[in-house]
């Protein structure tokens, strides 16, 4: 049972997933589940395989073994664009905005699949709401996205994903390169979206901050899940605190 008293429905189930780049195996039999309406945090050290896991789920990397179920159907064999059309959206590391289009047009492109069914008016209202939330990109809405600063591009990439209203949003280190005050805004936004029913799988280096807003968490180390459970439990786990939270707490608490 989830917190709202609704029966728990798994939206994404990853079972015994294995992946490799060439000769180097990165994931060794990973199992994770994300239920409808949950915000799940995935933490772990660098090179543990967090990004590879997301890339494998979204079809950018083909797995060596295991199963991936989304909405109850296997998606392992599907092409990335097909998986996206099912409502599973992945925001990879590294600010992949469309550099030669304006910030605003980037957002319209994010809403591309909603435009036909919901109409331009709805989308425009949503975009204005996002601009209100992130005033620093609102100021640059007419500038080419490629001319935005690194951090602004990062915010734009997140906003572009939010505007798409996916069934499951997978974010890879949204805090990367953001100023402290903006990180707060981004995390607040994720809490807000979760409350409105969006399901989110969040990969973060800021383990404390991510677990603080998550329902559940997984700790990935060296390509396997080493710990999992409700995020409050993980936050208080001595092992997790020592290995992943470190001094971060003092700066970002």
């Amino acid at each position, binding site marked *: 049972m989830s917190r709202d008293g609704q029966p728990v429905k798994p939206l994404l189930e990853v079972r015994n997933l294995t992946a490799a*780049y*060439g*000769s*180097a*195996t*990165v994931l060794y039999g990973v199992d994770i589940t994300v239920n409808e309406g949950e915000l799940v945090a995935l933490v772990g*050290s*660098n*090179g543990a395989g967090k*990004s590879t896991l997301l890339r494998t789920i979204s079809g950018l990397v083909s797995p060596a073994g295991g199963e991936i179920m989304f909405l109850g159907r296997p998606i392992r064999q599907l092409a990335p664009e097909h998986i996206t059309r099912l409502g599973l959206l992945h925001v990879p*590391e*590294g*600010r992949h905005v469309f550099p030669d289009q304006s910030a605003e047009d980037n957002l319209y492109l994010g809403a591309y699949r909603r435009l036909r069914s919901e109409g331009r008016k709805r989308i425009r209202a949503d975009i204005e709401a996002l601009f209100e939330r992130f005033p*620093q990109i609102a100021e*640059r809405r007419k*500038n080419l996205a490629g*001319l*935005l*600063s*690194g*951090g*602004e591009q*990062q*915010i734009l990439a997140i906003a572009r994903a939010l505007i798409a209203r996916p069934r499951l949003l997978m974010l890879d*280190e949204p805090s*990367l*390169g*953001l*100023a*402290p*005050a*903006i990180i*707060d805004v981004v995390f607040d936004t994720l809490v807000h979206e979760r409350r409105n029913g969006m399901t989110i799988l969040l990969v973060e*280096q800021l*383990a404390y901050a991510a677990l603080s807003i998550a329902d559940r968490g997984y700790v990935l180390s*060296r390509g396997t899940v080493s710990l999992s459970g409700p995020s409050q439990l993980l936050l208080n786990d001595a092992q997790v605190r020592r*290995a*992943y*939270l*470190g*001094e*971060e707490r*003092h*700066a*970002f*608490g």
Partner: protein
Amino acid sequence: MHSADLASASLAALPVAARQDLRPINKALVLAAGALLMVAGWSISDGYISYLARLTAINVIVAYSLNLLVGYAGQAFIAAGATFAIGAYVSALSMMKLGLPFLAAWAAGGILAGIFGLLSSLPALRLAGAYLAMVSIAFNVVVEQILIHWTEVTGGPIGLPAIPRAELGGIELDERVMLALIIFIAVLTVYGSAALRQSQWGRALVAMGENELAAKSLGIDTIRLKAVVFWLSSVIAGLAGGLYAHSMQYVSPDVGTIFASFNFVLMLVLGGIKTSWGPLFGAFFLTLLPQLLSDFQRYHLLVLGIILLAVVTTAPGGLAQIIDSLMARFRGAIGRKASLGQSAPANISFAGLDESVAVAGHCELVASAIDKSFGGVTALRGAGIAVRSGMIRGLIGPNGSGKSTLVNVITGFDRADAGEIRFDERRIDGRPSSWVARAGLVRSFQTPRMFSELTVLENLLAAQFHRSAPPLVAALFDLPSSRRTTRQAIEQALGLARAVGLEGLVARRAADLSQGDKKKLEIARALAAEPAVLILDEPAAGLSAEEATALCSLLERLRAKGLAVILVEHHMDVIMRVCDRITVLDRGRVIAEGTPREVRDDPEVRRAYLGIERANIGAA
């Protein structure tokens, strides 16, 4: 003596995969194979087979020359047919009209082709990719038109018949000796390009081809490097043209058409671009295929097109990739298993750091009153920053406040609209970025700019190019001085890899690193360029808390060694721990400057950057 021992010891400590990339070429084997091939060539008496052998060997030479330029250096200049024709015509005409002896005529062909190559490097200074390819096509058309229409010299569309055979010391070389000579030059070219690739020059070339901005940031003079590789590639193609003219005794404008150029490029693509054996496969394949299909001449191009499509869609790496994977399957799973344990945990050690980082003399960098705008958007207004040796200067501010722009302006990647930058009293604004890097200001990039196809070790070696390039001749022939520079560079590279915790990954391709490891490689690579002022753009982004702590220790050690550091960062714990002074930017202006404590307590900074609550917690 001592340092040489050290270097060979460290070479032995390298993982097998990394050592393979750096092992010296077996010269005895090359010599034996070359001699055998020459004797085999000499023994061919059948005229048709000799013709095919000559043509194949000449195409091998051109394909390898093109592999240097289009492959390793990544320059999309595809007019090799024109260069080849210049070498052929000049060499032939020098003998026929000027009466020069063969060797002088042949050299003249190479020299003129080299001049053509240098001229063609000029557009490459501004253009890349498809644009450069278009310009090269235009170059090719110009040469082709001259060959066709300057009839009184070139013989026009008919070309030059009855070109004298090559002679040495007055003795005419018959077909068999000529073939042996061509094979000799072909073997020399294959050997030379392999030796060059393994030298510091090769790593610099690939680095430039993979990421020109990063290459410049490490002090690699890309203008000079482009001139060198265009020149070298063209001289080799021109000399091949000369061999063609004097062995076939006939040239026509057909050898220099754009289609001839495409054919050379095709050899590279089909065989495997950037590989050491691909050009050989491609040259053999494309020379011999038309002969095999000579009974079906009408379908020759059709068959070629189908083969090209099949190879490029199934194996983008060309025939070399197909052969490689067949070999791997043949060898079985043994090799694969051996390389599995590569992702070793990060063991950070500063043991080698002292030897790997040069002690910097005293220096001071002052940038003041910098203005910069991009098409109406003002990025900097009167911003400034200063740092001297033994000091870490933090640069913080909201996203879009101009931090990276300031770094770009200081390091010559952007030009300031107003203001001045002095390094040890000397004005450095307006200087190109690679000059600034060689002067001692080396920066890292916010989004890692890797030389993706190079290993971690080779990334670090490429960064030392501007200090450790052997003479080009030494690199081409794998002379001891070339190997010595590589060994010394490895020594330093390993120390730096250890200091950032990448020692276990030195043999990994940079493209296959995790984001955090890429950030670490950025830092180590900047240090490998031996900066006096190290400018890091968000080095801790994507690092775990533990890794960020290790970064702090590294920065403190670098400061103790006398480096000046500018640190752009959002990780406030890193900033507060290591910085001596902090500059705060907001909307392109400096809104605060002072010690970490002063800056943290500044109400303006709290409002614009930290957010009130966070500043309170940080102060507690």
